[in-house]
């Protein structure tokens, strides 16, 4: 993993017992993970244990920690990569292990978060339907045809930032066609997963 000078320096400060005791270190790492995963989490400055530390220093350490975490998750870094990286910025085994424990605990959630950040098309999350029987309208009487209203719920952007719906109607035959195609896709997916 390549780290910029600023991040390396921040991590060195984190590693240094002269600035942060182990207790404060653990608190800061915890806050760093939490702030990445929840937009509503308290900031690093609100943590009662970290109030005594210089704010500029705290900010630098926090940025360094979050950058390192994101980079590690992005690269799917394993324990040896992380330890050797942290060793370079003078982490002792105790701090390195504490970081790794927190990393393992939060890795899956962070991966999910990161994989949801991309410019993908709206994601279909659910379908609802209604079955109607059309009897007549202003232009034609005795229509007597069943028709379906289908509504696909979709989510757009990370964490389902905006949700909307795709609504359309279809006849019985059209719905059969739609279901057949989706089923076909499902089967292909199943087969592909068994490879």
């Amino acid at each position, binding site marked *: 993993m390549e780290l910029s000078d600023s991040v390396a320096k921040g991590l060195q400060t984190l590693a240094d017992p002269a600035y942060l005791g182990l207790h404060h270190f653990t608190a800061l790492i915890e806050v760093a993970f939490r702030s990445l995963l929840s937009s509503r989490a308290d900031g690093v400055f609100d943590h009662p244990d970290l109030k005594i530390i210089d704010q500029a220093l705290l900010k630098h350490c926090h940025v360094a920690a979050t950058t390192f975490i994101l980079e590690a998750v992005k690269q799917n870094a394993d324990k040896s990569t992380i330890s050797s990286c942290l060793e370079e910025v003078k982490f002792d085994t105790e701090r390195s292990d504490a970081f790794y424990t927190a990393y393992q605990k939060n890795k899956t959630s962070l991966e999910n978060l990161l*994989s949801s950040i*991309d410019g993908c*098309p709206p994601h279909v999350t*659910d379908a609802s339907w209604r079955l109607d029987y059309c009897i007549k309208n202003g232009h034609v009487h005795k229509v007597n045809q069943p028709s379906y209203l289908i509504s696909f719920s979709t989510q757009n952007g990370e964490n389902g930032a905006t949700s909307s719906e795709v609504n359309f*109607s279809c006849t019985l035959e059209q719905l059969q066609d739609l279901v057949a195609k989706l089923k076909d896709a499902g089967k292909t997916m199943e087969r592909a997963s068994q490879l």
Partner: protein
Amino acid sequence: MLLVLSDEHKEHLGFLSEVDTVVVGEFGRIAVEFLKKGSNAKIYEGAARKLNVPTHSVQYGVEGLMYLLTESSKLMISEVDFQDSVLALGFSEERNKLLLQLYLENRKEIRNILSELGPALPCYHNLEWRLDVQLASRTLRQQVKPTLSLKLHLESGGIRSARVLQTDPATLLHLVQELERALAEVKSNHCRRILRNIK
């Protein structure tokens, strides 16, 4: 159910009893053509010149036929009811037969045209799909994330549009399950009873 023709409508169609049956047939053809593709004033003028009658007589005649056809198609009146309805026009039997034939031959198509006028949501036209596995992105390397890309083609008022969507395997199975339930519902006792009784 009989069709009630207004006096004005009868008067407009009355012109057809003054011309040859061949002309009536031709007017019928034009009326159907106009219903399919929209009317064209030039044809009225041409026909009026040939027959040596005022343009508006031809126009009223053809429009009267168009109205007769759309109203009877709209109500889906039976063969017998159509015959009884046009009796009020006082045409010869030959002309009545001609009208009946015109109605029966074009009823289905006219109903299709009329049904497009009703209010409707975009309707399903086609679905294309593609199975992708996302391997990496700017924010995350080393992924294995199967996704199904969907292109849903919809049609609204003759205009086609397509929406690109995607979904994941679990949701896809859920979608299939849910839509199969929708298909099964039309075969349920409740729906079959309603469908049988509204005829």
